[in-house]
């Protein structure tokens, strides 16, 4: 067994009991031994040497039943980027339809396109054998969220970029053609964007990791809103603090995130512990706070503040949502690790 794994295992041993406790227990054991000639192993646990045991209560020496996720940092970051880009694509499309300011549309398209380019890059660099990324396209498996996701990502890229280019060119050379290209590409990009913002929730939800699959019903919505918040925030920070539409969106997103936060906090399932305890708990909660209540409050405050003031507050809210969205993704992945570590057969009823 690997030392690291062992250390991890030993860390979870109970604290040593007090000396009097031990001495007392020693006498007990001596008597028991003298009487029956035998002592249960647990007697020694009290003597200060926790003998790891295999039992219904502890599972096999308290070792985890499941393997931890083996994704590197790129994956949570991708969840964040992909989510934001997906939302941005949607925003861009509706913005254009509703004939909003060209700058807003342009910047939205930019965010979508940049995200669309960044996403595959992050995915590839996470692979153990990056050169084999194309193997992802050997087959298409509806039953595998990752397979579906891969096709979404691949489909999301080209139209998003195309839409952006078309958009930029439109500034210089007027023409019906370009407009049509942009709107159709944009539409397609937006449709994929909806997938981008949501499928990652299914991806981690449909796994053996308890903390993930126990929240399968809320995860995609959670991620969608998180993406919306991040996307909106990103665009706003490009100088659209005054866009009422975006402010409304921000409001909706942070409100939704707050609701989900409350739901998660109230959920009794022991499987949710990693979302509340330990580092993973800290991060997810921080993420929740920064995308939910905090920006919500700020945006409301902004509505009553003076123009210059409100602009600053909006910027703060946006920054908070961005950071929050990123933390949320990191937190959830970390929670997955913890959940796996704690997954011995007796850890919870799920098994």
């Amino acid at each position, binding site marked *: 067994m690997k030392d690291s794994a062992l250390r991890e295992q030993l860390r979870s041993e109970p604290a040593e009991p007090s000396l009097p406790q031990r001495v007392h227990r020693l006498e007990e054991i001596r008597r028991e031994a003298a009487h029956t000639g035998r002592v249960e192993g647990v007697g*020694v646990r009290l003597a200060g040497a926790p003998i790891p045991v295999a039992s219904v209560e502890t599972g096999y020496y308290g070792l985890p039943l499941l393997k931890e996720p083996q994704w590197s940092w790129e994956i949570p970051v991708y969840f964040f980027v992909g989510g934001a880009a997906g939302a941005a694509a949607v925003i861009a499309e509706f913005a254009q339809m509703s004939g909003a300011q060209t700058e807003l549309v342009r910047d939205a398209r930019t965010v979508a396109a940049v995200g669309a380019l960044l996403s595959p890059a992050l995915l590839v660099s996470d692979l153990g054998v990056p050169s084999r990324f194309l193997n992802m396209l050997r087959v298409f498996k509806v039953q595998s969220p990752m397979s579906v996701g891969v096709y979404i990502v691949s489909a999301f890229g080209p139209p998003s970029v195309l839409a952006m280019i078309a958009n930029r060119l439109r500034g210089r050379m007027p023409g019906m053609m370009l407009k049509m290209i942009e709107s159709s590409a944009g539409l397609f990009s937006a449709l994929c964007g909806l997938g981008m913002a949501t499928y990652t929730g299914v991806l981690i939800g449909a796994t053996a990791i308890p903390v993930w699959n126990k929240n399968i019903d809320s995860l995609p919505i959670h991620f969608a809103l998180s993406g919306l918040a991040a996307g909106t925030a990103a665009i706003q920070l490009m100088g659209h603090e005054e866009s009422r539409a975006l402010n409304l969106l921000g409001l909706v997103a942070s409100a939704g995130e707050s609701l989900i936060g409350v739901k998660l906090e109230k959920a009794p399932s022991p499987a949710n512990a990693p979302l509340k305890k330990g580092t993973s708990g800290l991060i997810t909660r921080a993420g929740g706070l920064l995308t939910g209540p905090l920006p919500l409050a700020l945006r409301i405050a902004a509505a009553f503040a003076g123009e210059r003031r409100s602009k600053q507050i909006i910027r703060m809210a946006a920054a908070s949502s961005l950071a929050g969205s990123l933390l949320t993704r990191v937190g959830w992945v970390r929670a997955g690790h913890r959940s796996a570590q704690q997954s011995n057969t007796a850890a919870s009823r799920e098994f």
Partner: protein
Amino acid sequence: MGTSFGRGGATTAQQDLANSDAILIMGSSMAENHPVGFQWVIEARKRGATIIHVDPRFTRTSAMADIWVPMRSGSDVAFLGGLIHYVLEQGKEFREYVVHYTNAATILRDDVKLPDDLAGIFSGWDEENKKYSPETWLYKDEDPKPDAIKPGHATAGGGHGKDRGGEAGDATKHETDPTLQHPNCVFNVLKRHFARYTPEFVEDVCGVPKEQFLKVAEVFSNASGPEKTAAICYAVGWTQHSNGVQIIRAAAILQLLLGNIGRPGGGILALRGHASIQGSTDIPTLYDILPGYLPMPFWESDAHTLDEYVKRHRSNSGWWSNFEKYIVSLLKAWYGSAATKDNEFGFRWLPRVTGDHSESGYWLDMQDGKMEGLFVMGQNPAVGAANGRLQRTALSKLKWLVVRDFVETETASFWHDSQEIENGELKTEDIATEIFFFPAASHVEKEGSFTNTQRLIQYHEKAIEPPEDCRSETWFLYHLGRRLKEKAKAEPIARNAGLNALTWDYPTEGPIREPVVDAIVSEINGYKTASGELVREYTELEADGSTACGCWIYSGVHPKPGHNLANQRKPKDYLGHGWGFCWPSDRRILYNRASARPDGKPWSERKKLVWWDESKRQWTGQDVPDFGKETPPDYRPDRKAEGIKRIAGDQPFIMHPDGVGWLWVSSGLKDGPLPTHYEPLEAVVENRLYPQRASNPPAEKKQRPDNPYGYSLDKRFPYILTTYRLTEHHTAGGMSRSLPHLSELQPELFCEISPEMANEIGIRHGEYATIMSPRGIIEARAMITSRMRPLKVQGRWVHEVGLPYHWGRRGLAKGDTVNDLLAISEEPNVRIMETKALVCDIRPGRRPRGKAALDELNAKMRQTA
């Protein structure tokens, strides 16, 4: 076993265990150390047999057994004696078998005395020389051998010789009482001797609760008789005791009483720890015997001419009447044409044994600087032998050392990384020993044969050439011999006569000039000196020099050119005839004449093996009869009959002059005709039976400053120490500790202690504990487990520390060397050391490093007991 039945080898085959109705495994953790052989125990279990494991620890074998009974290490004879007592008491013996096939009815001399009469010793004890004269043990009316020293009683003897097969003179005149009424017939003497081994006694000495012991006794004895048979498996858990041979004797007596020898599903199976440990005794790399258990000539006691030598070792009746044929054929094989009748076939060229030249014997000489050179081939005494500290320092006294192995063993590396270098006892630049390390060829890089634990000779073919400098021992010895013979040729003086005469013209083949192994096999099998034609069997051997044979018991393994029976691969039956070659004469179950009633019919349909076919007028069955094929059951020799003719048709133990199994051994054992309970050399309790005689009287402690012992009942060392092996490693680790796949399974030395003990000394699971004996100090990870348990012995709780001994300072899986704790000692008959029951002390925490470790040990020794 030699003394009891006539041959030292296991009496049965592993596959035959499947036919047992009960199997007693004692002194062995078979499932752990012989897992593949253990499948036959499982097979028996599937067929309804009861598996009994008696062991101080609950091992992986216990985990497979139906009954597990713990027993204090070192009380084996007490336990077995208890079983014998039970059988005699309850009249559970197999009467007809006992009367006809054992010497139960034989009447002993009136002046023989038992330990109960003499406070712990048999008659004939010589207190000052610490040895027995077996005179009084002989059968009544049997004339003792004229010689001053009885065969097998030479002080120098290692006891591997045929003497163990007993040559109580010519047991032809003694009286018997088939009614077993005579007070001095063996049967009644046995009853008297074991009278004190009651269940209460067993409980008191072994720590086995009475009712548990009775459960074992009942199950085992009920599984014996005409319709049923029970087997016993043992390993070094029995042999490595100061009374090892007598433990096995006790088992032999039990099996003879229950009629379990020579019958399917019966027998005693000795489980050997190495691929060819049986082979290396048959064709011995031992000092006291020649191939085929012919004794080496002993200078002190033995003949100096071939005639005397033969006279002394040949017996007029029984198989050993052929003695002369075998020794002469051996001499012819070795000295070839130079060996003639006039020069006694070169008998004078053979070296004489002048003392104890066993490993422990000469190692002490080495330590005292009396030796110059040493060859070590495929063994690692620096880790594997008792008192490692002495083992290693002794090596530093050599002028030169040759080590042949797969890896640089601790034996080869003692001069730069041993414990003694660490603690400053030895300094590399002071060690004048010149060391040659030769890499060895593996079993697939050379051809040759191993003899397994059931006397089965199996050949392994060569798959590939050995890499680089790796060579087989065959290559090494042949080419070394070639060089030496050249030197001898140059100076043809008396000293070199033997070497000059030695036949050494083996053909070689291949790029590395590997000797043709087939030529060696042929020589071992034997051939007619005139024609060079191979002999078909040892019955063709002659005493006139017309035949040569390297090892008579192996004769028949290569009956004609191109027919190496050791390489047969077509098994015909469950006993494996057609697969390999089983000495002698491919007999798979020894003494199998006993599987039939005296009248030649099987004891029962269920347990038939070999029987007399009246129509064909010969013995027939599933095995090769271990008996005169045409000797009818009703054959009765006349008074004058000689040799094998002297054995009656209902006497299955043909190696014995009286043709029966020996409950009582009148000659051949140095520590008594019967086993009796003695405590180990180092014990934590006194000897309940004979307070005046703690341990086996003739056992040698070899006590000296560098091989110290504790006092009796030493307070400084209150715990029993027992050592053993694990499935995942091989003996001293040379073939396992450097292999990743095995090392990861048992990466570090650990000690097994009971929860009670852990609490007594405050040791915590997984932490280090330091263990000390009068010889050494080591550390080990503590494995606290209720598989170890204290036992109530003589009214107090006795704790035991279990230590697997594989580890050393090299390889992937490292650990302290457990054998540093053991003492060099010698069981009187075979000079084995005691490893299974010694004393130690244990404390929490790691041992100090460097010199400090020695200091702690010395401080411990300075404490007053």
